[in-house]
């Protein structure tokens, strides 16, 4: 019996190790030889990257891929990645990286709050912090730079476009992302403000979080359809959820798109989503630029050389696409 138990523990441990190996991209490269590109310190630049789960959405996959390519060994970096969609797990991973004495800590936070202690610890350990993709609620002194999408602006651009459609009344199904994330906050705020400002014309028929998940979005819209409520706009805070919403519409035979009964709006500009715009099945897609690595590298270069940064906050340039004006070129260029 005891023998069996020992065997069990050993084989389990072996299996776990094998699985982690199979998952590939979890661990960092062990760079002993310095291979060109590099820093004044004569070795590789140690970078710790905290991101959300790369499987969360097409945007995230592109973002992660971009970072991996940029911070590869060949480019002179020793990069470690940690992923989670949960804020506390990210914080724990960040603490570990600080202890591992990384040179730079790059963070895309799941939640805007709760990072004060991490930022302070990093500062104390002389680890330079760069925020990317999403902001954190903290004093600017605590980080070197932030290269973020202005989520508020994304929301506003979308809502402005919606206002520009000049509908008699707006009955909106609002499908939100994971509550508390910067993306959700920014994109939701604009819509909430618009509805509050003109409550005669605007009505939020339903507001639920789909947690970036197509299936949940489908169930939410299905529920509204089953309750026989009227609506003419679907404001989905990412493409996957817009897709789920559209599936529910198709099932019910409700028309959507340019010149049809329901306006469909998404965010992230996945290639396939932009195609839907091109085909005029959807109406609007808000860009969320995942390619921050070049900006980050610039910042790191400057810091390594000891230069001062012109501006701490670098806002990515993002726009919104309209189905009536989008071209194939746009799809190829901007689709992720």
């Amino acid at each position, binding site marked *: 019996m005891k023998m069996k138990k020992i065997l069990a523990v050993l084989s389990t441990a072996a299996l776990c190790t094998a699985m982690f190996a*199979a*998952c590939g991209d979890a661990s960092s490269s062990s760079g002993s030889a310095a291979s060109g590109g590099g820093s004044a310190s004569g070795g590789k630049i140690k970078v710790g990257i905290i991101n959300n789960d790369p*499987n969360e959405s097409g945007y995230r996959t592109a973002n992660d891929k971009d970072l991996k390519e940029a911070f590869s060994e060949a480019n002179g970096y020793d990069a470690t990645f940690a992923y989670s969609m949960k804020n506390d797990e990210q914080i724990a991973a960040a603490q570990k990286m600080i202890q591992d004495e990384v040179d730079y800590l790059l963070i895309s936070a799941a939640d805007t709050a709760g990072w004060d202690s991490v930022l302070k610890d990093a500062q104390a350990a002389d680890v330079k912090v760069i925020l990317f993709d999403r902001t954190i609620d903290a004093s600017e002194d605590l980080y070197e730079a932030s290269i973020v999408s202005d989520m508020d602006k994304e929301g506003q651009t979308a809502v402005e476009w919606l206002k520009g459609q000049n509908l008699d009344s707006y009955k909106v199904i609002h499908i939100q992302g994971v509550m508390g994330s910067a993306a959700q906050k920014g994109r939701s705020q604009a819509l909430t403000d618009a509805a509050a400002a003109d409550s005669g014309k605007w009505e939020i028929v339903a507001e639920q979080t789909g947690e970036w998940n*197509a299936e949940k979005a489908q169930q939410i819209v299905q529920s509204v359809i089953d309750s026989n409520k009227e609506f003419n706009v679907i404001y989905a805070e990412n493409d996957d959820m817009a897709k789920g919403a559209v599936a529910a519409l198709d*099932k019910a035979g409700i028309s959507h798109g340019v010149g049809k009964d329901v306006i469909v709006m998404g965010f992230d500009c996945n290639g396939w989503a932009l195609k839907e715009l091109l085909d005029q099945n959807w109406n609007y897609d808000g860009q969320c630029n995942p390619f921050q690595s070049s900006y980050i590298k610039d910042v790191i270069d400057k810091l390594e050389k000891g230069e001062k940064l012109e501006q701490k906050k670098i806002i990515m340039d993002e726009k919104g696409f309209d189905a009536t004006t989008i071209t194939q070129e746009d799809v190829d260029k901007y689709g992720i």
Partner: protein
Amino acid sequence: MPNNSKVQPPKAPLWARLTKHQIIIPIAALLALALFNLIADPSFFKITLNETSNGNKVLSGNIISIIDSGSELAILALGMTLVTAASGGQDISVGAAIAISGSVMLRVLCGSDSHSATLQAPIIVALLIACLVSMAFGAFNGALVAFFKIQPMVATLILFTAGRSIAAWINNNELPIVNDESFGYFGNYIPGIPIPTPFLIAIVCFIVTWLFMKFTSISLYVQSVGVNEKTSRLNGLNPEFIKLMTYVLLGLCVAIAAFIKVSRISTINYSVIAKDIEMDAILAVALGGNALSGGKFSMSSSVLGAYVIQFLTTTLYKFEVKATALPAYKAVVVILLVVLSAPTVREKLARLGKKLKKSKPAGQAA
């Protein structure tokens, strides 16, 4: 030997037998939910025939949503019941296993090009391969539990943790999309059939399960092993093999559930697909009145339990309860039902019932 005649109780009427059987718990829950909705808004039960954008005529309505969305859970409940009964523990890796199974299916269908325009293999082949892979992972779990005597929740923790990463690795971290229309039929509607296909698939699974239980002695064997392994062995059974089998069968259920899930949206999202479904599956088994410590079981009760959970979810959505609050409501309802079904509480209620009967003019002692 003298044969003392004993009092043979007369065969009780159906409703009386039903109340004694564990199936009364999910039935009561369903009735309560139905009643609640009936009072709050009778139009909840309305079913209409709509035309989809493809020109198909399909049924829609809250009840349809329930039987549609509850399919995967009901199918999983079948396998989870057997696993619980035989090994006295639960398999918490089913969500991750669905991710793996779905990923395999998409890999077979899309090949290495995640946006391939045509199917690289027939759908049935993809399904069969996914079944084999799922059953293999099921066997892995089963072997740990049966041969290495590891506690089921601990053993299945391995796949729970690593499964979704494996799923992503199968497709190189890409999110393949199936562009073939016929693939979507299985998760949505087959043209010409107004009933949602997932429900039809679930019905087929129920029938197959019923036939399996009727034409083999699996029910007796699983219950025997679950209640007393030593005795089962001395009666010629092989408890290890039986336990292993239950996990493999759950693997089969996983593959079918994955098939439905992936077909709904013709793509997959590894971290999100079937998230937390293992908790719902375990809940379904418990709501069905089955002991989570193993032993006797009732398959039909588990299936009803699954639909209770789905009914609850749909009801809460309808009342615009925030999705983040959903788990809290589920928890309250679950606590209520599980407490009411606990043997001590039932005994107290039975005693109460007897007292009330006694207060009526007493007849001759039976």
